């Protein structure tokens, strides 16, 4: 690696358009054209992110749901292009995002190994060399030559894990997908992950399991609403995260309480209300003073 970093982002921003989603149709687009400017058209999943990961660092990304953790991994993997700013990655990236994503039902286990290799852009010869060790690790017997549709979900998971961890990358991006297979395989895979993590030059790991962060990482970043809130030693950042999420839970409870007693005049799920309020920076329409309160009709 020539320069002094493994990953660098500068002022990285990712914007999602709300115009197009999986379910847009021409009809909806026309409808939207007619009532222009109504509602938000886009939102920033990440904004103004500048992170430098040095070789040898193992960074844990934590944060509440919807903070942009997975989006960040997708950008670092090159799956999503930034809407603003720059991402630079020095070295071969492997994601363990995709345990089973590339599988084809009709191909055999062996053929799927080669297909996965081709998808990841790994040289055919290298993949041929590794095929045996992947087959050994997956340990699914004669099924390796049968079409994938005959596999149990456990077998699929084992094969997926074996392929994903067989390529030793310079930079490893991990989303929490690691709990697979039966008890014995899980133990074996835990060891394998530790090995792969040790071998990679840099690691970025997203997890809700704080023990993973403190066990495997030497740096942690707390993301909230698409920006960095804390960055530093895993213990400290995890502590901050716990504090924040405790605070959020407290808020939920308050809102829930408020709804029950009728002090909150809006309907909705408490979690959503709190998240919405956090995102927009507005107060939840009132935890109104006692004397003005108007009990909601209970459904």
């Amino acid at each position, binding site marked *: 690696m020539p320069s002094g970093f493994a990953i660098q982002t500068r002022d990285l921003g990712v914007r*999602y*358009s709300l115009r*197009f*989603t*999986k*379910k*847009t*149709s*021409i*009809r909806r*687009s026309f409808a939207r054209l007619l009532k222009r400017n109504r509602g938000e058209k886009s939102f920033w999943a990440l904004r103004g992110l500048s992170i430098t990961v040095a070789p040898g660092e193992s960074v844990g990304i934590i944060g509440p749901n919807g903070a942009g953790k997975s989006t960040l991994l*997708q*950008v670092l*993997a*090159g*799956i*999503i*292009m*930034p*809407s*603003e*700013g*720059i*991402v*630079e*990655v*020095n*070295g*071969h*990236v492997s*994601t363990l*995002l*995709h345990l089973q*994503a*590339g599988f*084809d*039902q*009709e*191909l055999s286990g062996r*053929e799927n190994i*080669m*297909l996965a290799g*081709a*998808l*990841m*852009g*790994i*040289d*055919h*010869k*290298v993949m041929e060399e590794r095929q045996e060790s992947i087959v050994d690790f997956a340990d699914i017997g004669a099924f390796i030559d049968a*079409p994938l549709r005959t596999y149990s979900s456990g077998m699929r998971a084992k094969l997926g894990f074996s392929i994903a961890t067989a*390529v*030793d*990358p*310079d930079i490893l991006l991990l989303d929490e997908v690691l709990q697979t297979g039966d008890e014995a395989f899980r133990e074996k895979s835990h060891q394998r992950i530790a090995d792969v993590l040790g071998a990679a030059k840099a690691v970025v790991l997203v997890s809700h399991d704080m023990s993973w962060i403190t066990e495997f990482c030497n740096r942690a970043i707390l993301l909230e609403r698409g920006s960095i809130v804390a960055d530093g030693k895993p213990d400290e950042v995890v502590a901050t995260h716990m504090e924040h999420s405790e605070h959020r839970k407290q808020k939920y409870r308050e809102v829930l309480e408020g709804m029950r007693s009728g002090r909150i005049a809006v309907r909705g799920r408490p979690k959503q209300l709190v998240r919405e309020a956090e995102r927009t920076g507005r107060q939840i329409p009132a935890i109104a003073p006692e004397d003005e309160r108007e009990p909601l009709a209970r459904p």
Partner: protein
Amino acid sequence: MQIATEAPSSFRSSAVRPGALGLIREALAETFGRRRLIRHLISADIRRKGSDTLLGNVWWVLDPLLQMTVYLILLSVILRRSTPDFPLFLFAAILPWKWFASSINDAVSSVVRQERLIKQVQFPKVVLPVSAVAAEVLNLAFGFVIVLLMLAVFFPAHATINVLWLPVIAAVQFVFTLGLALLVSAINVFYRDVGILSGHLIRLWFFLSPAIWSFDSSAGRFGAIEEALGEAGVSLLRANPFAVLLTAYRDVIYGRVNEAGDGFTPGQSPDLIALGMLLLLSIGLLILGTIIFKRLEPAFAKVL
């Protein structure tokens, strides 16, 4: 350790996208650099189609033959049309049409179908429509074998050396199909309507193309269309890319029906000027399709 890769490993991505020329260069590099991936996808595709039916890949050959039979019955028995050697007349056009229709049909959903993959692995998405279209080439190759067999066994009077033009005509059609495939597969990500609509549009297109009729003879078959559409309509029909393609296929395989509609002249060379112009148009379409596909590509992972 440094592992050998078929794709560049280090990368730098930013909001700035290359211009039109850069996009085309990128698409070319991706298609050729990842040909092994394309090959894997093609073989998976062929396997998938072969495995869920009893007759498997025999359907490649049976399908256009059966379709020919349907039109044969419809036109010659019910509508009492008599064209000399009608089966060959029909098959010469239905086979390439079938190739086009199923290529587009597969390509439309090629990107959308790989939703999970696109969101989880970084790979050039061009390989998806490219492999969908390329997988169908085998289809056509088998069909051509049938054509040659038909010529040799049943219709030797039509056979001439001009059959050798077939790969050339097919190549022009391939370029046209690929361009259109890139276009529709990308747009279908944003508007799923395209997938539904395309099936119907293709069926309409079939009847507007000289597949079950031809421009040649005035005896009953083209005359009615001419009357219904008028001069302007007919020249519009002639401008249709598939008017050029299907006529060319029929010229080299079947030949031409004579004016009276009761005889034929055997296989002859195609209209090379029309084919050449269509090739230019197809290359233009391919360039346009590539640019639009590459422009939209970064948004795929977000929209799906």
